[in-house]
């Protein structure tokens, strides 16, 4: 810091004028750099038109018991499945302690609508679309969905039971706007 041999540069509290100028200049440049970097980083986040797709309405009246459809929300596949009574019973029979990501079927559906299982069709491992929504597709060892990429098996509540996926298929935010129309997002 300030030395006694430079009386002209030293002020009474021992801080040199030049120290102040250095700190002020570097701070100013730092703030300026951050101000430039922020938009450069943020330009990579989803743009307004991508975010505008964030709400989708689905008519579920045509889905028979035991059937499922694939639709799309935010460019990601969504499975809407009308569970059979047997499938609901099977999901409720599973002891919670045995699950990797413990959730009941009731927690994954809306009250009074336990037969409507609505999940993203995106495997929580690395994002493939699991099989099992369309007729005749492999539903895996637990009768739900099966991801062919790395062999994750989901049960009838779309909970992970076997394979590398860490969590259950994601339940997106949705509401029943009527008995036959669901709004996702």
């Amino acid at each position, binding site marked *: 810091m300030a030395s006694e041999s430079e009386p002209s540069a030293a002020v009474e509290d021992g801080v040199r004028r030049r120290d102040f100028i250095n700190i002020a200049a570097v701070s100013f440049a730092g703030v300026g750099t951050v101000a430039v970097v922020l938009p450069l980083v943020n330009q*990579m*986040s*989803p*743009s307004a038109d*991508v975010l505008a797709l964030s709400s989708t309405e689905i008519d579920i009246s045509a889905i028979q018991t035991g059937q499922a459809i*694939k639709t*799309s929300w*935010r*460019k*990601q*596949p969504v499975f809407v499945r009308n569970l059979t009574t047997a499938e609901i019973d099977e999901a409720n029979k599973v002891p919670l302690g045995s699950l*990797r990501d413990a959730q009941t079927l009731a927690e994954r559906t809306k009250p009074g609508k336990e037969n409507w299982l609505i999940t993203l*069709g*995106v495997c*929580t*491992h*690395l*994002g*493939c*679309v*699991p099989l099992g929504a369309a007729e005749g597709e492999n539903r895996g060892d637990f009768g739900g969905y099966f*991801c*062919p*990429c*790395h*062999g994750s098996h989901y049960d009838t509540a779309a909970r992970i039971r076997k*394979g*590398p*996926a*860490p969590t259950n298929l994601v339940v997106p935010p949705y509401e029943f706007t009527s008995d036959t129309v669901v709004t996702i997002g």
Partner: protein
Amino acid sequence: MSFPWANQYQPQQPLMKWLDEKLPLPRLVYNAIGSGYPVPRNLNYFWNFGVLAGAALVIQIVTGIVLAMHYAAHADVAFNSVEHIMRDVNAGWFIRYAHMNGASMFFIVVYLHIFRGLYYGSYKAPREMVWLLGVVIFLLMMATAFMGYVLPWGQMSFWGAQVITGFFSAIPGVGEPLRVWLLGGFAPDNAALNRFFSLHYLLPFVIAAVIILHIWALHIPGSSNPTGIEVKDEQDTVPFHPYYTAKDGFGLGVFLILFAALTFFTPNLLGHADNYIQANPLSTPAHIVPEWYFWPFYAILRAFTFNFLWIDAKLWGVIAMFAAIALLFFLPWLDSSPVKSSNYRPLYRKFFWVLVADVLLLGVCGKMPAEQPWVILSQIGSIYYFAHFLIILPIVSRIERPEPMPNSITEAVLAKHADDASAATA
């Protein structure tokens, strides 16, 4: 930067003398890859692959710039613009097939270059920095190749992008927001395609810059050689030009013949038929496979099928895959043997070949679907891969008794000549 007996650049023509005073670029080239760079006299053909990798990069940049003149980076038209290149653009099919297979050829020569380094101990002091920069180039190549594969916007492009960016979602907490930020959306789409195109165009030039650093770092101690003995005096070396320009030129000819054979006779041999189907975000191909040069790492990724300690299987897979490459950064310090060349390391030599077999096994596992027996084989292969670098190599380098070594490169060369001569007369 060079040995004292290196040839000196002496321009003869007035123009070259004038240039040498103003901008000594010819001098730089002369000292880097001309007669001014003394090289060990005993290099074998495994020392061709650095030059071949450089040639492959040039081919990729030239064909890539031309392709970019005809390609459109928009999710609606990207696939069709590639078909347009294949069908309508004059010689477009040839340029695209050359670029596709050029990537494979680039990886073939780079893998041989890496295994050359592993066998002959090229990563050891005083060339650690050469090795570290090489690993950086390898990482940049993988990123470039991955993003390039997304551009045709076929099924494998799309699902490859989905799976690879999915790696980032394994990171606890910030993973999913990070993935969305990288993609610019919730799934690969136009934003992702555009930024991948931009970066795919940029990274090869970054690679070229790191290659310059790689060569710069190499020229400080000078090239290694098959005996691993450092150059002692002038009789151990010959000038790079004409001796190794000629030898590399021959290798380049062989390389181009193989490259042309692949491009003209079996252009899709190393590709996937699924990538000629346009990307469909609602349907995953039954069997997602990356390009062949990623297979060993893909096998390591998939080897973790169970949670372990407090970390889930997905994160373990991603950690293991990146660790498999990051491990190479530590190699110069994991192998403490002062002997470089495996020619004089009887024990390491055996384990080297086991490692080669292990990486080939992992490659096969990465290609096959995630079913038995491939899962268990990739688990065994992954364990061995890490064991080689973290357990076997440090132990071997301590307990091994190297075979007797010649005193100099010249002695090794002359002894070999004497052997050949006596064999010929016998």
